[in-house]
């Protein structure tokens, strides 16, 4: 067969790896990528096989500068692979249990770790460590920002690191993007950061329009349909186990509220606001008067901030009332402004004079 294709068959000497440089280099690349995949999301090394498969499918679909910006997939099939079906390796996911496994009353999905892509058909390989089962399914809900093996079993082991990982349960999707990027940076040691971001091709355009919580229906094999995503506006705790729910609840009280409506629900913030108001009353900051005709009102809002000590522990909850000064008009509401700002040259001069005159 080789002779038919005008290929000369050569055999290298035993124990002389350097004669087979290309293949060895490729092996090294694959193993190293797989190792960083595993270590970046704390996946135990017994899943090395899955990591290797994932690595291969990723390297085959990532555009490469060696093949003039095309991916190997594209060179072979002539069309761009569907990047939207990629998920973060090692993330938490929920797999719909097959009919045989579930009764009417049992839970319909199993919490699993995402371990790669099924061969051929569009499907995901997910492993449930509790039942020791590997599911190959396309009915999967992903929580891509939570590495499966970073979920603590109890809330006692809360560290700052966990907070960064899971902090983006705010419903504001614009925050999610930045958190997502940061979590990529924190999870991956040097070297793998580039790999994961290139997996997503462009992390910003890919993540931005969606909430971090999505239900994905992978497209059938032949179509190039854009995947559906359903944003869930309200976050339901009930879909998690009890330990995870309490963990989320413990994070929730550390969260800085962005509006009065959120803050009033929490007694800690309420107390902080009472303190600020009583301080303002004590200094007679304002009088309550009827609005004079022909004048406009400047709005105000509460700003909430957690003051931390240098070791990261909470010093106090601070609520501050600020006026919305941006709506003031020059000449009407104020005449002159000035901020007492020292010139930098003055500060430098002062320091030198003080130093020399010591």
């Amino acid at each position: 067969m080789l002779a038919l294709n005008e290929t000369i068959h050569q055999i290298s000497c035993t124990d002389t790896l350097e004669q087979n440089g290309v293949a060895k280099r490729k092996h090294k690349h694959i193993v190293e990528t797989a190792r960083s995949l595993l270590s970046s999301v704390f996946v135990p090394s017994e899943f090395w096989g899955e990591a290797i498969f994932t690595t291969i499918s990723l390297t085959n679909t990532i555009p490469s500068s060696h093949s003039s910006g095309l991916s190997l997939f594209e060179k072979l099939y002539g069309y761009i692979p569907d990047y939207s079906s990629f998920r973060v390796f090692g993330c938490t996911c929920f797999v719909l249990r097959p009919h045989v496994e579930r009764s009417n009353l049992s839970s319909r999905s199993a919490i699993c770790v995402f371990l790669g892509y099924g061969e051929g058909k569009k499907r995901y390989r997910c492993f449930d460590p509790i039942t020791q089962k590997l599911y190959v399914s396309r009915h999967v809900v992903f929580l891509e920002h939570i590495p499966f093996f970073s979920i603590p079993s109890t809330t006692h082991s809360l560290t700052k690191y966990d907070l960064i990982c899971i902090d983006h349960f705010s419903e504001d999707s614009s925050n999610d993007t930045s958190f997502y990027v940061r979590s990529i940076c924190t999870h991956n040691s040097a070297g793998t950061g580039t790999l994961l971001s290139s997996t997503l091709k462009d992390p910003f355009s890919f993540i931005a329009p969606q909430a971090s919580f999505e239900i994905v229906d992978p497209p059938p094999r032949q179509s190039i349909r854009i995947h559906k995503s359903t944003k869930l506006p309200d976050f339901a705790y009930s879909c998690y186990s009890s330990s995870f729910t309490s963990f989320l609840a413990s994070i929730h009280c550390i969260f800085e509220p962005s509006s009065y409506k959120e803050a009033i629900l929490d007694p800690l913030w309420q107390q902080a606001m009472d303190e600020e108001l009583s301080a303002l009353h004590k200094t007679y900051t304002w009088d309550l008067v009827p609005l004079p005709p022909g004048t406009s009102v400047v709005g105000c809002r509460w700003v909430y901030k957690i003051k931390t000590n240098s070791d990261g522990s909470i010093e106090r909850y601070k609520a501050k009332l600020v006026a919305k000064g941006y709506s003031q008009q020059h000449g009407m509401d104020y005449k002159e402004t000035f901020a007492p700002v020292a010139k930098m040259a003055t500060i430098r001069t002062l320091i030198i004079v003080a130093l020399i005159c010591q």
Partner: protein
Amino acid sequence: MAPPPGISHDSGYVCKLKKALYGLKQAPRAWLEKFSIVISSLGFVSSSHDSALFIKCTDASRIILSLYIDDMIITGDDIDGISVLKTELAKRFEMNDLGYLRYFLGIKVAYSPRGYLLSQSKYVADILERARLTDNKTVNTPIKINARYFSSDGLPLIDPTLYCTIVGSLVYLTITRPDIAYVVHVVSQFVASPTTVHWAFVLRILRYLQGTIFQSLLFSSTSSLELRAYSDADHSSDPTNCKSVTGFCIFLGDSFISWKSKKQSIVSQSSTEAEYRAMASTTKEIVWLRWLLADMGISFSHPTPMYCDNQSSIQIAHNSVFHERTMHIEIDYHLTRHHLKHGTIALPFVPSSLQIADFFTKAHSISRFCFLVGKLLMLVAAAS
């Protein structure tokens, strides 16, 4: 103001503010007024050369307070007076005494036997993180030699916000990093409509900063208290409108206190003219610094040398003969002549190779760049 949520009130009623509240446009001004009343009752006078500098001067001693909104530095030779001032201020305002100067406005002040080291390394790290620079590449100089940037280069950025914030941060960083003053002056010209080429340039600056993150400015403790200035200009360096660049730097003893890199507002016809305009702006700064130092109790009996590498502009300053080639130079640029005559400044010549202000007018080769950075007494402090 609308009543804040959380207090009970009748509808139709509003809060009539008697005091300034955080966020109002008047707030900082009201604060200064209040602070001025308190501080003047303690015998301090605001300096007329920097309104945020307050000085109390008696026969024997002098206390100086520099205010930056709500942060202040207090110094002086009267230790008892300072502690009295601190207790008085603490009575009127809720404030913390942070002890000796360590951090001020994000600038770290480190003490060493040779003097003080000023650095903003944490701020640099913050900028690098904000720019999402993930690799560890570094470059030796912030700008390629002979690089020219046009406002029309490249494609416009889709989202210019990041460019603007990074450039804004870099402007603040120049407080302790005169080595990027020139490049920051270049990149800030494109803030209105940044393009991909300009962003690549900003990234180069960030790579330079990444390699020199611990570089700090040394204020030597053994230097004299003499002012000396260097003035230079780069004639028609702007590729689009042929305007020249002014660069100057002023030393107090060995320590570097003031510098500028700025495009001139008027096109100059000759390099002499560009130098002459640069000399005028340097003169202004020298005059101001002499006044400021006089406020701090240091007066000068002899003129401040302003080193210049252009013989003919020195001649113009010395010789007030009306000349065909200088007839169009505006009267205000002849400020230099006035101060030269009155003995505020002197104009010695310095060869171009030793002209330090050259640093602020153009891009340099690596060896020249390193030579000039050394001249500015910029040191790499050990990571601490």
